[in-house]
């Protein structure tokens, strides 16, 4: 994995073909085809909106919570999809790995890219919702792509780690599934962070905001619906160590995952 040829011509060709193939195969045989990747999060959103916002009154008094909820669900779908698909990428393409030598990270990247395509399509829906909900656009929206990039990098890092570990320990997939379920509830997605502050107090909210996913999701929401409606990490912590910690976790994950993946990739063909 020399840095210079990470995206060499040959690798780009291969990545493109793998992504296109994934894309074609995903919704093959379904009538609505790719519309499903838009419909799924929307339906999920509808259910959660009815249950949590309409009946349980989560987010009451928080302006534009519906948009926040939709954005949260879409980002979360991306996170689960990219990490799960990335995890299964190496094992799923075992037939290729056993017969031809090519950079293995390409497969992991291709697994996350189809999730990224979904995310971009879904963000169009969020945008439409924003218009309907009368969200005021602010300059901070311009920083939203940067936040997305960090979320993507973090997901990719996790995917690299999981993909390599999954070749050796197939239990990882079950473990990850449970972990994701836990993380879903530990992240302010279906409930606003304001609710945590008012019920559990400042400390509970601070605890949740040590998770990079919570920090990044809140930041993304603040950039989209406005800082005055979303509690971000800098409103909770004054100590810069706590502010930096999530980003250190992100960077550390990426570095360690890359090292681990590079170390184990030469045995993929034998073990997969």
């Amino acid at each position, binding site marked *: 994995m020399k840095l210079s040829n990470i995206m060499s011509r040959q690798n780009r060709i291969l990545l493109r073909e793998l992504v296109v193939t994934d894309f074609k*195969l995903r919704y093959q045989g379904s009538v609505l085809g790719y519309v499903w990747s838009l419909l799924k999060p929307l339906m999920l959103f509808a259910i959660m909106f009815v249950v949590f916002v309409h009946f349980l009154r989560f987010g009451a008094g928080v302006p534009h919570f519906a948009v926040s909820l939709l954005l949260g669900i879409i980002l979360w779908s991306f996170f689960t999809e990219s990490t799960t698909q990335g995890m299964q990428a190496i094992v799923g393409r075992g037939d290729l790995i056993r*017969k031809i030598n090519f950079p293995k990270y390409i497969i992991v990247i291709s697994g996350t890219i189809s999730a990224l395509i979904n995310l971009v399509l879904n963000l169009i829906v969020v945008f439409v919702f924003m218009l309907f909900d009368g969200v005021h656009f602010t300059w901070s929206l311009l920083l939203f792509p940067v936040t997305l990039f960090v979320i993507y990098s973090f997901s990719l890092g996790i995917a690299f780690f999981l993909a390599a570990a999954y070749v050796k320990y*197939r239990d990882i997939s079950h473990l990850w599934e449970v972990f994701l379920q836990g993380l879903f509830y530990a992240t302010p997605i279906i409930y606003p962070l304001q609710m945590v502050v008012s019920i559990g107090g400042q400390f509970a909210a601070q605890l949740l905001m040590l998770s990079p996913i919570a920090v990044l999701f809140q930041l993304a929401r603040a950039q989209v619906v406005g800082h005055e409606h979303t509690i971000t990490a800098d409103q909770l912590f004054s100590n810069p160590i706590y502010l930096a910690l999530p980003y250190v976790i992100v960077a550390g994950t990426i570095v360690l995952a890359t090292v681990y993946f590079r170390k184990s990739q030469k045995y993929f063909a034998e073990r997969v």
Partner: protein
Amino acid sequence: MSDKKEVAISVKNLHKTFKLPHEQHSGLKQLLVSVLNRNRKKGYELQHVLKGLDFDIEEGDFFGIVGRNGSGKSTLLKTLAGIYSPEKGAVQINGTLVPFIELGVGFNPELTGRENVFLNGALLGFSRDEMSAMYDDIVKFAELEKFMDQKLKNYSSGMQVRLAFSIAIRADADILLLDEVLAVGDEAFQRKCVNYFSDLKKNKKTVILVTHDMSSVRKFCNKAILIDKGVVIAQGDPNEVADSYSKQFIANNQTSIKKKHRFGTGEVIYDNMQYDLSDDIFKLEFDIINKTDQAYSDVTMGFDFCVNDEIVIGNDTRFIGKYKNGLKLDAHQRKHLVVKFKNDFGKHQFTLNANITTGLGMNVTDYMRSALQFDSNNVRYADAWKVLSHPEIIEVEEGR
């Protein structure tokens, strides 16, 4: 012009060992167990497949690698292709290399022929534009003009191989690795392969051919090595190497008599096995007997056909739709069965290893090595095992 040729591939003291886990399950439990039991028995066996190979392949060589099944030649090929990394020693490659461990790598049955061409092409390093430029030629050569928009799963195996081969021969690399590519397809296809080989030889490409077929070694190769149990035991002139290869079998034949025996748990066994060979059909007639008080619903019969004591082709009843989940047998029941194979056995002296298993292949209840011998004399295929991997079972009749 200089006579000195460049070295295309240099192999130095190459070692490769595989860890074979005793249990197939790979999981955290195993990790925990192996951590806790560090001092006890290890959970895997080490298999030393390549034990220090040394050889050079020069530019423009047509290099044959021969050896019996299990000699390590496929591992060597995969190591040369960079799929496995050497454990000790080194493989140095000068130039671009394209391996054909199998034709049609990455072919997906759910994609159309056309889509598969582009996917397979990308794996060989061709861009969309390059593939588009070659596309018509590929399709024409494969003779599949009318089928390209159909899904690959609707292709016959012959059509798939033709398509894969047409793409493969476009590969423009300095070094080509071919693993028994000739082992598939009908006669017309094999002729195409031979032409392709002749072209490669004419164009002074560096080709490494791994094969069982000594006639191709003699015909195409200018150098060859014979490996056995992970070491090179003969190298140099292809004719001499091919002779040593053939001698291995004669030597092996004399010892094979000792191995003739029968084993298994004895729960379900064969009785009265007979055969009848006609031009079209190889008919096998036998009884199976359940010796226990227990009924089985998942009995499978397997048939391996051997030439010179090596299994070359085989099939079992699970591949017949009706017996996919096994055959039912009541307690103490005796059942008479007739299994008819299509006679594509070529011209060989075969011995048959017949087995019965329960639990869909898990539990061997009867294994008869050299249950019977027969001389097939079908001239349609000279070497059956290069054409077939499974001798086709036409039907199974159940009596009583």
